[in-house]
């Protein structure tokens, strides 16, 4: 029977099937960070359990780490305790960790692929909803809660019900001014933040296969913002080229054997999906969100919708409340919105391609005088090093950006990087929820190129 890509990966990981149809799903890779793991390790200790398979795990601190003066440690004692707890837990249980002073440290979803620890056909979990990122490699990757982190540590498995499948095809060629991020924001604006709830997504079509691995990771990263725990892209030459030569990637005979298996990781031509959407890449312009949900977005050449355009009263109320929070009015052209702050970083957009795209826009120009803060936060120490080797740091610093150490930073503002009350930010992160970047902070989600252009202009601007 014809199978979808999801079916293939799912079927390969079934350990057993329970009476109610749920299955025990084997987990190949477990990514761990400091925020959602301490209670899980405590649980193991309390039950006197050991991790089932330590070599399947990889840990790195990212949410709490400072992005300045790292040699001085973490000044916030509560954050410091949490990062130290991760170090101690990894040491106690024998789990591989790239600690805060390791050049390989960074955002867990950036570090995993960069190290070759994410491979096609794997099942990947992490106590973080943006684990969907790794679907870019045809890995079935999903965010889990802390109880399930403990469950995976103890058993290397999860109890799962089979989700439904949805294919989202994006045909034709994407504009050079757009990226994987714009495709993600466009799709979410079309299907809504609950559009993918209960589904595993597969992204297909020319605009998707044209994307680099970085672009595919940005796209799959935001599958969760469409409500789906996982989003997949089929394996092709781009995938295979990315994997070769990374520290933990297979080599020699292992790689040859793996390549043969990975070449099967695509949906069969006559596979049937529970739901299908199709979009035209030519209709996608650079996207900017205007509200407090990732679905509240339009093209940079568009305007905030009128309340009368809402589909029902519940949506109208949501829009009204979002506009009040954001300090904006219905019908305002996006390019009339002035910003105070720029954040380029996060597990969505902090990879080398993102920094290159932003630097191209910035080169030889100056950050506008109304911008209070403009941050560039690499996704890992190695990306920061690579960018410096390419001279990108100089371009950014000369333009007036701050060049920071790697971590989650202002995406969720758990460390010192945050917006003040009422401050408006062009951000390459993934969530524009109320208070996400600081209480009262106002977030507009955009691509790195649009964030960079907004930093220079002081307001949103069309880069085409």
């Amino acid at each position, binding site marked *: 029977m014809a199978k979808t890509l999801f079916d293939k990966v799912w079927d390969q990981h079934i350990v057993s099937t329970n009476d109610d149809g*749920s299955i025990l799903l084997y987990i190949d890779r477990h990514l761990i960070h400091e925020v959602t793991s301490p209670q899980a390790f405590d649980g193991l200790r309390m039950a006197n359990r050991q991790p089932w398979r330590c070599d399947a795990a990889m840990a790195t601190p990212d949410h709490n780490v400072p992005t300045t003066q790292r040699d001085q440690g973490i000044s916030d004692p509560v954050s410091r305790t949490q990062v130290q707890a991760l170090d101690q837990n990894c040491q106690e249980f024998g789990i591989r960790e790239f600690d805060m002073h390791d050049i390989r440290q960074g955002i867990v979803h950036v570090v995993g692929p960069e190290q070759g620890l994410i491979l096609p056909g794997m099942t990947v979990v992490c106590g973080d909803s943006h684990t969907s990122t790794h679907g870019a490699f045809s890995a079935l990757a999903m965010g889990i809660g802390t109880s399930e982190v403990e469950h995976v540590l103890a058993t290397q498995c999860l109890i799962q019900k089979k989700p439904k499948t949805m294919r989202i095809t994006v045909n034709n060629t994407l504009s050079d001014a757009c990226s994987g991020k714009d495709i993600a924001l466009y799709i979410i604006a079309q299907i809504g933040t609950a559009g993918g709830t209960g589904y595993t997504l597969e992204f297909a079509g020319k605009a998707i296969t044209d994307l680099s691995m970085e672009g595919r990771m940005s796209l799959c990263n935001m599958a969760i913002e469409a*409500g789906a725990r996982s989003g997949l892209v089929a394996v092709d030459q781009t995938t295979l080229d990315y994997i070769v030569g990374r520290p933990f990637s297979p080599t020699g005979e292992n790689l040859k054997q793996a390549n043969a298996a990975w070449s099967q990781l695509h949906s069969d031509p006559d596979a049937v999906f529970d739901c299908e959407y199709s979009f035209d890449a030519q209709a996608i312009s650079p996207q900017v969100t205007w509200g407090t949900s990732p679905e509240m977005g339009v093209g940079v050449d568009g305007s905030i919708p009128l309340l009368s355009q809402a589909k029902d009263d519940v949506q109208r109320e949501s829009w009204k409340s979002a506009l009040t929070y954001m300090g904006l009015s219905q019908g305002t052209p996006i390019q009339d919105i002035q910003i105070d702050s720029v954040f380029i970083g996060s597990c969505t957009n902090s990879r080398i391609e993102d920094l290159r795209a932003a630097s191209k826009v910035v080169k030889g120009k100056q950050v506008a005088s109304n911008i209070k803060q403009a941050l560039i936060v690499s996704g890992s120490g190695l990306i920061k090093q690579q960018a410096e080797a390419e001279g990108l740091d100089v371009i950014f610093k000369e333009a007036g950006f701050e060049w920071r150490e790697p971590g989650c930073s202002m995406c969720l503002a758990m460390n010192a990087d945050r917006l003040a009350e009422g401050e408006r930010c062009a951000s390459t992160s993934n969530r524009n929820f109320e208070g996400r970047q600081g*209480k009262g902070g106002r977030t507009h989600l955009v691509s790195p190129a649009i964030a960079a252009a907004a930093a220079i202009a002081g307001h949103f601007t069309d880069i085409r």
Partner: protein
Amino acid sequence: MQAFISLDGLVMPLDRANVDTDAIIPKQFLKSIKRTGYGPFLFDEWRYLDVGDVGMDCSQRPLNPDFVMNQARYQGASILLSRDNFGCGSSREHAPWALLDAGFRCVIAPSFADIFYNNCFKNGILPIVVAHEHLDTLFADCFANEAYQLSIDLAAQTLKTPSGDVLSFSVDDFRKHCLLHGLDDIGLTLQQQDAISTYEAKRKQEAPWLFS
């Protein structure tokens, strides 16, 4: 985990869609390495007028009088009524921990985000999906009547209103079983350790690159 068998509880209406887990428990409280103590910070940014931080004495903080949780009639509520896509966003289990710590054992909404929904069952909280047509009535009745209570019976999978209407809801058999008995599913999975080992041995042959 605390078992959930039945509940007769006061209902608090949170009349908005897409309540995200950042709103349920903001990020600064995720720095704690414990499972408890999040209740006073539940819905922190809506509930208080100042900026909350870890370790604050919330009894001294200025309350937002407009937020539903600060109204006298909803004190002691154990059932939360809300709208579509409840619990979207971050996977933080601190969200159900905060709800539980503040006394909520049940959340009723027309739809839930997947990860939040799953996290509830791991913590003795019952998420109930009700159809939109019933939801509007529940909201209207809850606003109209002080001390509005619902009776929930998990074994029978029913929700009873004060006027005697009975709505049935669905829940997976396995999740229901764990919730009714307060079971730790790690222990259940470990009963299958031979199956896990057998699977691993087979996969090491088929796909050795996954184990290096």
